């Protein structure tokens, strides 16, 4: 399949732009952007021993979720962390959610390292359990699922960023090529010459590298014998001459 000339003309630049942009996006997302890791710990509200135990557990879940976001919990959790972190910072990194119609509470934390994210989520869960125990005198919460260090960062999403960079650069290069084509006033093809100069094109001679003609621009030589070539050339001339002469 033959590629249209305008496409061929801008192909190299467009491809370079796409490759460069995608590579740059990859480099920036991998080396420049700060990585963030997310880890989640899950608490379960234990139902009481009475007949309405499960119902009361469901009703208490939002209450314990609120307890998890109290200053008491932030203070306690921040003191037990392996790094120095203020309760306010810890609060800003944490999201506590009571899952609707269940007795589960999720504590999700985001931190610059995988182990720290897991430690933060676990410590907040433990602090919440302790606070609940102190308030109720029993152990209404249990750690259903401790936070595990995540294997991959939650931000930046390399695949997403690279895909976006690729898509945008493809669109950008198409737009740029169209713009260049629109504002290109150079005469490139026979059509351009006919259109703009309004004179016939008698021949369109390709670029011949000097080495192919031994640094002599004469593409015909009289020192080599090729009768067939000569015959063809003469036939072409004669056929055209006859056509012109015929009525």
């Amino acid at each position: 399949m033959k590629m249209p000339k305008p496409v061929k003309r801008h192909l190299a630049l467009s491809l370079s732009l796409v490759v460069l942009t995608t590579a740059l996006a990859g480099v920036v997302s991998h080396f420049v952007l700060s990585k963030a890791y997310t880890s989640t710990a899950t608490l379960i509200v234990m139902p009481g021993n009475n007949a309405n135990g499960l119902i009361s557990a469901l009703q208490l879940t939002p209450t314990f979720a609120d307890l998890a976001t109290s200053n008491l919990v932030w203070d306690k959790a921040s003191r037990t962390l392996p790094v120095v972190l203020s309760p306010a910072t810890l609060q800003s990194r944490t999201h506590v959610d009571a899952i609707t119609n269940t007795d589960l509470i999720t504590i999700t934390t985001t931190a610059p390292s995988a182990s720290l994210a897991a430690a933060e989520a676990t410590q907040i869960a433990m602090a919440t359990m302790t606070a609940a125990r102190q308030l109720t005198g029993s152990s209404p919460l249990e750690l259903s699922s401790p936070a595990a260090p995540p294997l991959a960062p939650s931000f930046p999403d390399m695949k997403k960023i690279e895909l976006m960079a690729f898509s945008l650069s493809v669109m950008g290069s198409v737009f740029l090529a169209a713009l260049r084509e629109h504002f290109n006033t150079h005469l490139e093809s026979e059509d351009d010459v006919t259109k703009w100069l309004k004179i016939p094109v008698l021949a369109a001679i390709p670029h011949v590298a000097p080495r192919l003609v031994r640094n002599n621009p004469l593409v015909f030589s009289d020192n080599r014998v090729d009768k067939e070539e000569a015959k063809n050339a003469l036939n072409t001339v004669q056929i055209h001459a006859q056509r012109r002469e015929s009525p």
Partner: protein
Amino acid sequence: MHLTPFRSTRSVAKALEQYRSLQVHIQLWLDKSSKTLLITSALPQAGTSTISANLATLIAYSGHEVLVVDACVKRPQLSHIFGIRGISGLTSALQDPYKWEDAVKETRIARLWVMPSWQKEPNQLVDGAAIMTLLDLLRQRYGIVIIDGANIMDSADTLMWARVVDGVVLVVPSGRASRHVYLKALSELEYAHAPVIGSVLTQMRG
């Protein structure tokens, strides 16, 4: 009579084909009468000498007697292409047009002669009347006189040649310059009442 490319590559083969196309157009334009043809361009290094030399060679091979005149005073190329030395050429022919034979040299190619250019003062304007007389004399002797002209933008002489020849071919190197440059060159030719018969697109890539 043998025509053969130096080397059969795709670009050379295509160039041969296109030169044949140009030859056919020019021979149809000649229409069995003797004519003068100026090959010029709007910009330097457009390939006018290459086209003049190849076209002259092809027409000579096809049986016509051809003279190719190097009118590129500032940058003569034909002497180099055809390997001609030790001849005064166009300068002396314009000084005394009736002694033009002294300024013409035979080439290795049968029926092809060259009038090289050896002007000592390139800025000196040529005499329009001398050009006309010279071309009339050459037209009587040769089947076609091909003049390799300097580019229009740099040389006022080219417009003088363009005014007196039977046909002008404008060489347009592909992608080299804006169309406005060529439109200006065409308007200059139009102003000189030059009979532009067509163009040749050169240095096509891909």
